[in-house]
């Protein structure tokens, strides 16, 4: 009975996510249509004759009504065809593949460092709350968040690439690179991202657990003679999972979607840089494709957070 209810709730979340993604695709498409400028004009340049422009428009289907163009685009996307980039006439899906993988690799490395570290620091801050350790952790985390990522990035380059020469200043990666070399190449951007997202996750972990620590069952645990860390780990943590997962997912989304600046600083061939390059070239199909992928990542991760929150709730898992 419980599992049927859970499955229904999860199915609802999934359906909602898909629906949302379609709504976002409409917004992205509409947004790029509103942008001033004409695709044909930007391909052919200022010197193009009216006849040539008209021919290209017909060829690209630009004269069709917007909704037909939307469904044509959507149909392509659903079959894995994002169209061709206007600027260099290359297949977008193909170019995206490698870049998406690079971005996910960088985000994954940053997540592997930052998520456990943030939760551990959050637990420590609760255990020694209002003491020196708590304040030191909070101070460090807040300082690292307050500094803009380009500043942290250049600072890291100055010390670790220029002075100490441990890591390269620009994170060039290529297909034939070994895993170890790849890790070394992305070490600095990964650390930069970690410092940016750490504080938020750590502070939220601390707040979520402290909130739970007010509960009567924490007093029960104290009166059983459990140690402070056992109380936090066994009794507070399981009830703080949902809010913590929520903030972790938001930050994971940021690691993938918000890396634009970091990728530019470290000249890393990921999605962010790809997007920035093509925005400046007014390459609408690429912007649409990247926007849609970012939206999918965002919605997907938030959906996971929702589903974890459902699964973490014993009242839903085990109804009366």
């Amino acid at each position: 009975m419980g599992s049927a209810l859970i499955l229904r709730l999860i199915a609802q979340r999934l359906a909602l996510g898909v629906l949302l993604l379609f709504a976002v695709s409409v917004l992205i498409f509409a947004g790029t249509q509103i942008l001033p400028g004409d695709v044909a004009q930007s391909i052919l340049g200022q010197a193009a004759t009216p006849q040539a422009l008209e021919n290209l428009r017909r060829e690209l289907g630009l004269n069709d009504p917007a909704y037909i163009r939307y469904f044509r685009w959507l149909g392509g996307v659903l079959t894995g065809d994002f169209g061709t980039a206007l600027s260099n006439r290359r297949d977008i899906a193909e170019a995206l593949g490698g870049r998406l993988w690079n971005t996910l690799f960088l985000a994954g490395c940053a997540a592997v460092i930052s998520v456990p570290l943030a939760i551990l620091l959050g637990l420590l801050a609760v255990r020694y709350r209002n003491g020196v350790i708590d304040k030191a952790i909070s101070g460090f985390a807040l300082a690292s968040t307050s500094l803009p990522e380009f500043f942290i990035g250049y600072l890291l380059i100055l010390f670790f690439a220029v002075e100490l020469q441990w890591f390269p200043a620009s994170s060039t990666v290529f297909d034939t690179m070994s895993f170890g070399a790849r890790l070394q190449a992305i070490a600095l951007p990964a650390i930069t991202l970690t410092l940016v997202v750490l504080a938020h996750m750590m502070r939220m972990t601390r707040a979520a657990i402290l909130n739970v620590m007010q509960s009567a069952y924490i007093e029960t645990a104290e009166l059983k003679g459990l140690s402070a860390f056992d109380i936090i780990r066994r009794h507070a943590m399981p009830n703080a999972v949902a809010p913590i997962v929520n903030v972790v997912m938001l930050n994971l989304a940021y690691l993938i979607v918000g890396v634009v600046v970091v990728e530019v600083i470290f000249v890393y061939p990921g999605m962010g840089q790809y997007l920035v390059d093509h925005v400046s070239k007014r390459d609408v199909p690429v912007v649409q494709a990247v926007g849609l992928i970012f939206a999918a990542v965002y919605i997907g991760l938030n959906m996971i957070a929702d589903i974890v929150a459902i699964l973490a709730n014993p009242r839903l898992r085990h109804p009366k």
Partner: protein
Amino acid sequence: MAEQPRKKVQEAARGTGTLLDIRNLRIEATVYPPGEDPKNVVIVDDVSLTVERGKVLGLIGESGAGKSTIGLSSMGYGRGGVRITGGEVVLNGRDILGDERGLRKLRGKEVCYVAQSAAAAFNPAHKLMRQVVEATLEHGVSSREEAEKRAVDLFRQLSLPDPENIGDRYPHQVSGGQLQRVMTAMALCSKPDLIVFDEPTTALDVTTQIDVLAAIKKAIRDTGVAALYITHDLAVVAQVSDDIMVLRHGKTVEWGDTRQIIEKPKQDYTKALVSVHAIDHEEHAPTPVPILTVDNVTASYGGGRVKVLRDVSVDIHPGQTLAVVGESGSGKSTLARAITGLLPPESGSITFDGRTLANRLADRPKEDLRQLQMIYQMADVAMNPRQTVGTIIGRPLEFYFGMRGAERNARVAELLDKIEMGKGFADRYPAELSGGQKQRVCIARALAAKPKLIICDEVTSALDPLVANGILKLLLELQAEEDVAYLFITHDLATVRAIADSIAVMYRGELVRYGPKGKVLTPPFDAYTDLLLSSVPEMEVGWLEKAISNRRMEAAGN
């Protein structure tokens, strides 16, 4: 060598003699009153007590008397920043204060705690069994297998249903009365020397309370554990304690054996506690025309899926009180919601002062709203904390009568006078008032509208007995002066006896007994009314056993 004699002393101490010896205990806390500087208050002042092995000491007093604080001090625990600043707590022959590491070893092993609300005291994320045996395993008292076996035995002793499997359930899957017994099993599991019961039955229905009380008493007797039993209900503590200590404002008022305290109290305060609820209220005969008639009302939640009221018909007569009694979930408050229009009935009609009331609140004219007022259980949350008492009481005067300025202020002062508080309170905020004063302000607010009927929803349930008594007397006086009728919802039968002219007994959404007070409270009873009446603790040693053996029907909470 040194180990040997100490062990012998401890073993000797475990047999008989003094288990807990609290000497000149002083406990303080820092409070932060609104708009004032933080100040130090003494919560417990020079209290000394001893508990013998296997004996039960009842701690009784009103809220703020320091009962729970003293109880928790036996575990060296100060709730919410409370500090033990003086005295000694000697447990098993050693002073436990000031040794944080030692405290952790004794909590859950030598002393265990049973909280008022087991529903909040269990971790919602873990199965019951895991929590029940946790302290036993933490302190290495026994293996997991043995601990679980003992837990199942205790579940059986405490007459929990399905004792083998109830441990596999989560807290939310078990009723409040059952959880309270599981918590008692949890406290007993590690074979402690002392258990602190902190109002373990206060939050339960009267019919459930008696079962839990009997189970706790039996468990104490069978295991030979000593206990501190904390409650504000003298009749309850009289059933389980060997001795009783009466506390007030953190000081000892009287300490003696149970029979002496109940039958021959020496101090005036104890006498007042023993004789509480001695309001004599003669019932009035029904008038020919009722002010409110509820006619065959049926109501449900979730669009007809969950029927919460079935075919209920009652009359309320002008200037009289109808008491609606029943346990939680019986539909008492739902009846009030139907009458106020918050839950439109599915069928049936409600007639008020000769006219039929619209089903939905939104369809009722202002005049209907004015004549039908409500007072709630939680006075705290029924008032805006950022408004002064004068604004709170003045609001209905503005809203219904358009009073302004001096006229309004004069009327507010008059109303404050009626509730025996004086106009000096008009500029105070709710946070500055005591629980009883807050409820008085809510009464004044209801009266300000000059209603013909006031619905009182458990208005005295959250108050201490003596304060509650004062509120009931006030309500009766106001009724005589203003000729207002009350629909009085309560689960407390002593309150009903004190205030009602007629009584409606509800059970699972249905009316099981209804009529004038004298008739309803006179045998022969139906099975449920009998259960309800016989479950009310009486201030008499040995009442519990008599009541349990005379019962005809099991409580629904079982």
